[in-house]
């Protein structure tokens, strides 16, 4: 292909680079979503939420690979967004290093954090199933708008007890469902991310399972019953080409119900999407 054969040469010349991007990506606005790599608590099978756990060694490798896939695709982010949780931030650092885009502006917002898991944070998933029953845990994990039990201000997991959230007012009793997560993700997308996309910038968002679910639900108009079951595999770039109104332009190779396309080995990706469903069986 014309664009791909000139790819390496284009990077060194700003003029040719912008001409080629007009050629390949005219009228498209590119959004790259990356869910952070495996964390240490994924390994330990604990409810994580806002607990600021690091990536596991495998998680680091996963997201370095994600960065290489994005670079091989010829994508060059212009601006990046991520949460205030280190597993997503370090995911972004790796991706930007691999794509030679370490210099782009990065904005971090708690509104892109993972869903807060309330009083379940820190608990082992299997033990929680043993204690409350499989069905109840399934409701907490996979319903759209039933949140887990709250934490109050005496809990170490209440956001008011973490300095990094000191500028934000949280209710005395706090927890989140996918629905309430979406309620804080979407305003940030509309107010802050969307204008960047509309101006033609390639945007990369490094975030979490539920905050990305919120985004794709909005982009792809996915039903509430479907979104809670949708698994977005870790460390796998998901690329959207959007039109001027930021509606996805459907691409070949999408996996329903998404209109964005994953980068990487498609069979392995499908297998992973199926595999996450088995975590609390």
């Amino acid at each position: 292909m014309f664009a791909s054969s000139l790819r390496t040469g284009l990077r060194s010349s700003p003029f040719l680079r912008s001409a080629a991007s007009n050629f390949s990506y005219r009228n498209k606005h590119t959004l790259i979503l990356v869910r952070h790599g495996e964390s240490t608590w994924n390994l330990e099978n604990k409810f994580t939420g806002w607990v600021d756990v690091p990536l596991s060694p495998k998680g680091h490798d996963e997201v370095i690979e994600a960065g290489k896939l994005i670079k091989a695709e010829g994508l060059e982010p212009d601006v990046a967004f991520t949460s205030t949780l280190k597993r997503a931030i370090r995911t972004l650092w790796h991706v930007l290093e691999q794509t030679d885009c370490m210099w782009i502006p990065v904005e971090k917002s708690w509104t892109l954090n993972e869903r807060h898991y309330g009083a379940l944070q820190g608990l082992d998933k299997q033990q929680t199933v043993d204690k409350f029953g499989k069905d109840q845990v399934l409701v907490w994990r996979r319903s759209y708008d039933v949140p887990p039990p709250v934490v109050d201000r005496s809990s170490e997991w209440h956001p008011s007890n973490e300095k990094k959230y000191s500028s934000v007012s949280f209710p005395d009793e706090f927890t989140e469902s996918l629905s309430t997560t979406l309620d804080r993700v979407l305003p940030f997308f509309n107010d802050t991310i969307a204008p960047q996309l509309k101006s033609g910038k390639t945007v990369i968002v490094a975030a979490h399972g539920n905050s990305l679910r919120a985004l794709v639900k909005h982009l792809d108009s996915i039903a509430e019953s479907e979104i809670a079951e949708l698994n977005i595999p870790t460390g796998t770039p998901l690329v959207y080409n959007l039109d001027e109104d930021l509606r996805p332009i459907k691409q070949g190779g999408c996996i329903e119900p998404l209109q964005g396309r994953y980068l990487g080995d498609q069979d392995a990706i499908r297998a992973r999407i199926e595999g996450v469903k088995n975590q609390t069986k």
Partner: protein
Amino acid sequence: MILAGRRLGSAPSLNRLAVQHCSAVLPLHYVYHNPLPTSSGASRPISSSSKLFSDDKPFTSLNQNTPFTLCFLRHGQSTWNRDNRFIGWTDTPLTADGVLEARVAGQILYKSGLMFDEAHTSLLRRSIRTTNLVLMETRQEYIQVNKSWRLNERHYGSLVGQNKKEVVEQFGPEKVKSWRRSWDDPPPPMESDHPYWPGKDMRYRNMLEKIPLAESLKDTRARTAVFWDETVVPSLKEGKTILIVGHENNLRSMIMRLENIDPKDVINLSLPRAVPLAYKLDADLKPIPRPDGKLDEATGFLNGVWLGGDDAVKKVLERDHKQVYDTSITENLETGGKWTTWRNWMEFAIGETDPNQSANSAHSEEDDQINDETRGKGADH
């Protein structure tokens, strides 16, 4: 329904949040019997201006444990630092030793108790990666990091890429010292067909006319002064504690202005890599003198405090000087035996270094206690 202490926003969705919380505070068996929601298909319209949680509490700095509000930090060793070449705007990566230097700096900051509200750095990967590694060690990855070309290293003109000692042999130590450290003697300009011409780089595509062909310290200061006045001053006046991770000459230009160092004296000011330099500032953002009333012993110019001690800095600056100017020394002082003093200090600060430590791996092996008690309670300054 207990809502005391909650600030209510204006969005209608907040009432739904209230209902959620009510159902969540009911005894568990009530929740257990709630059926799973049925599909409604359509996406609920979200007001783009709805803010569930007010983000407008008056600002309080995260830095409550130390009196410092400003910290300068030069990046860790990059490949061309190791190879003793003039770098300028060339985007050289950190070496494995440079990663360790940055991590040591981060450990020193963590132990000092200093916490930052925001960080500023250049567009160059050696300082960006240093910033990331420092924030990793201080458990502050979440703060905003702003990147600006105005914090890029001074542009070294046609010297970029050349070996410093060879240039000294060619032009003599006095001339090279003048190019490197004087106030207004710029190196010879870089031509646009130079192999390291920054105009070829994507990141400068919207500012091609601003790329200098060469800079004296005076030229660099002109651009950092804009950055200082437009970005640093407002942040400091807001009460923020800020970290500036940058490059030797660029930092010299800002420190010179802050400390009011005379242009004819600034030729004698050099800065070591990866040693935090912390400042207490008064209401006019002027440096408050050190407790002993003296200037630092490493450079003799500064009211700032080297976190890590003046002695270590002195040794590093002596090594740096020899590396460039002492043509009787043929070995590379950035690597090898004479470096053990620094390495010992590194091992003291962060424990035994893994000989297989890869420069690509940006994570620390023993992670991460979410525990502010392990953070230092503040320097005794």
